[in-house]
């Protein structure tokens, strides 16, 4: 029986075992009808597993699920859909070449005779879109629309199937700050219409902003369920990690030395051959962190790719320690003691099918002691890996496990371990804590500050404004491929940066003079 009458959903003692891992260990989760319930926990705590059990994608090894008072047995997503459960997955489940409408109706298509009834389908989509304020273009193909709109398509998909309980798996991970605000407006509007929302995240600010109640998972176990208004961010962080966590970065005043890296009049094009970086000049000193703040898609990615030798530049010049490295390739740049934490760890940071020891020497694999006369020295590599796994606290697998089996936070720590272990003098960190849990964020931030204090220059790019503000010594604001201003971190705040980032330059300039 469900434990209380007003629970729309009550999951009791859910256990799910994967080979070698207990992903869910007697987890309890109860959801009241009409609430926004945040499910939080570090990466690998079992949040997504629990939701996949609820959506019928995984069969639990133990436990019971009660929905609207009745015990239910979910053999597949179709069972969950029938009950009124909808899920918006972290990686969108959209078929790129198909249209918005086709994606929405797929699997429950309206028909007239033999044919798929496109007209009715479009009408239904339009109705839902208007009712909930979810703007989409029904005839556009998924591959041509923005990430924000793709997410709205996913939401409409669940509503089209009559979802009453909507599960969102890390919905904000892929969104810009503006899109996050829009999403939360949608949450509110759904709640007003009587829908119930379960919302997976590990961003505490969001939890405080939008949720009614919070359930915390840690290492596969449910730790506690609390009312949002009764707790602080720090409380939730402690429940998640199991120890006190510093949410604020602690660092001493920077002690900048001579210039280590310089960009002069850099111009770079994007994949469509349109200018993405326009005439940027920047310089980074030893012992300082230069942060680049900006809404994603304003040229940050192209800038970093150009600096690290991954993208051709149109014009301009790079200097490292006074040496011209403009036309160096990625490998030559690395050999100049430049470390790079790439923005997409799964695409550029790791080879997901390689194991930890192979990943941890990538890029240095041809150097002694990892290889000698072209032959890999696996004994040395194993020893080295063991040391680094310990030092950087990479958890979730031994040196023989594949990188893809680690949680996001541990994957990121693995990259940090590799990049920081060759005495880098110039460090490029792009979205270093994206999709990483609070415990690992603290660790990675401290590592970056340690490198700075050792005298390395750091170039930091992050879409998280709070991260840029707390880590950087100086902040360059990028907007539409141009640096609009360079400020001292101690002399600015989120409001001013926010304005500069969205191009209201004159206004912000006026304010800072007040």
């Amino acid at each position: 029986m469900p434990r209380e009458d007003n629970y729309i959903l009550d999951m009791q003692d859910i256990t799910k075992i994967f080979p070698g891992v207990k992903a869910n260990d007697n987890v309890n989760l109860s959801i009241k009808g009409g609430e926004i319930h945040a499910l939080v926990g570090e990466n690998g705590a079992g949040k997504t597993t629990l939701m996949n059990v609820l959506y019928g994608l995984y069969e639990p090894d133990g436990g019971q699920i009660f929905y609207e008072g009745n015990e239910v047995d979910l053999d597949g997503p179709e069972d969950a859909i029938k009950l009124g459960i909808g899920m918006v997955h972290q990686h969108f489940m959209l078929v790129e070449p198909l249209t918005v409408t086709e994606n929405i109706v797929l699997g429950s298509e309206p028909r007239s005779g033999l044919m798929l009834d496109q007209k009715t389908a479009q009408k239904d989509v339009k109705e839902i879109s208007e009712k909930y304020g979810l703007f989409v273009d029904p005839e556009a193909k998924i591959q041509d629309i923005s990430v924000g709109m793709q997410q709205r398509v996913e939401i409409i998909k669940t509503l089209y199937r009559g979802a009453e309980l909507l599960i969102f798996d890390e919905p904000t991970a892929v969104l810009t700050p503006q899109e996050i605000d829009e999403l939360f407006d949608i949450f509110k509007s759904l709640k007003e219409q009587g829908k119930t929302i379960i919302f997976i995240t590990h961003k505490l600010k969001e939890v405080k902003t939008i949720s009614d109640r919070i359930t915390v998972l840690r290492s596969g176990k449910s730790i506690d369920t609390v009312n949002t208004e009764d707790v602080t961010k720090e409380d939730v962080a402690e429940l998640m990690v199991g120890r006190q966590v510093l949410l604020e970065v602690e660092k001493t005043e920077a002690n900048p030395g001579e210039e280590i890296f310089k960009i002069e009049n850099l111009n770079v094009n994007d994949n469509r051959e349109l200018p993405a970086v326009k005439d940027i000049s920047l310089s980074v000193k030893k012992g300082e962190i230069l942060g680049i703040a900006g809404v994603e898609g304003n040229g940050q990615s192209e800038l970093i790719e150009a600096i690290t030798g991954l993208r051709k530049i149109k014009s301009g010049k790079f200097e490292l320690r006074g040496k011209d490295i403009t036309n160096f390739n990625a490998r030559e740049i690395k050999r100049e003691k430049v470390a790079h934490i790439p923005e997409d760890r799964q695409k550029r940071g790791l080879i997901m099918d390689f194991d930890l020891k192979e990943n941890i020497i990538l890029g240095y694999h041809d150097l002694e002691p990892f290889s000698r006369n072209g032959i890999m020295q696996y004994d040395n590599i194993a020893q080295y890996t063991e040391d680094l796994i310990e030092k950087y606290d990479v958890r979730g697998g031994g040196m023989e496990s594949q990188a893809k089996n680690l949680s996001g936070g541990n994957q990121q720590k693995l990259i940090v371990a590799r990049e920081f272990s060759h005495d880098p003098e110039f460090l490029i960190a792009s979205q270093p804590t994206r999709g990483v849990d609070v415990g690992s964020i603290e660790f990675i931030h401290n590592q970056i500050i340690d490198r700075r204090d050792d005298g390395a220059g750091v170039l930091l790019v992050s879409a998280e404004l709070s991260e840029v503000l707390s880590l950087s010594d100086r902040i360059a604001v990028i907007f539409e491929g141009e640096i609009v201003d360079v400020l001292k971190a101690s002399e600015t705040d989120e409001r001013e940066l926010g304005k500069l980032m969205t191009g209201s330059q004159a206004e912000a300039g006026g304010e800072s003079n007040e």
Partner: protein
Amino acid sequence: METLTKIFSLSLILASFRFATPLILAALGGIFSERSGVVNIALEGMMLFGAFAAVYGSASTGNPWIGVLYSMIAGLSFAAILALVCVTFKANQIVVATGINIFASGITIFLLQVLFGVKGTSPMVNRLPAFRIFDVRFNPITYIALILVPVAWFILFKTHWGLRIRSVGEHPAAADTLGINVNKLRFISVLISGVLAGLAGAHLSIGDGSAFVREMSAGRGFIALAAMIFGKWHPFGAFGAAMLFGFAEAVAVRVDFAFIPSELISAIPYVLTLVVLAGFFGKSTPPAASGEPYYKGEK
């Protein structure tokens, strides 16, 4: 001048249709299979086995229509093997299909020996009667192929069933989360491709001729794949490509050029395919999940 008239004569155009028929059928089969996410390079072997089965059916019953039925069953049986091993058991599609092709070549030669007691060519059997519509005389399989082009288009692009096939070939996990049975759809699509490839074989042995000759598919299954790619996995596109290839074959067979060896003309389809694959005629993008087995619940 005489050569030119020959090239553009009605009889040559009609011949093009005859040569294109097996390509159209097999290419449609390939489209169904690949749109659902299964690469089917076993079309060649299915076609060859279908050609043999058609002759056997016609020989043993005297009725070429039974031969047609046999050819489809033959294609279906090979497709069932491919689907079982690659869809259900998730083996590598290219390796299994290559195995089927080699097996088809061996088993047909073996059965020629066992059932007909001959080595290279079967005895003559009853062939399908040609139907005359106005001045055009084709065997029924050519008409069937021509009808199936719009039918395939209708199924793939106008029915809910086609939408589902396309979705499992592009993003099986997305289809799965909507309660669509990915492997069932793939299995069925592969079976359809087998039936069509088998029918293509029947055209070769008892439609266009009246005997089975060893290795008589002669790479047409692969040219059909080329037509499918050239046609961008679209029934009308594949039809156009198959007609072009059929025309090239007709020219090579029918027209004597003084200076150009006919072998060079026969090479046109292959050259065209290379040109297309290299991307000279716009990009040809295969279904995103084509060739990848689907594992439920994989990260």
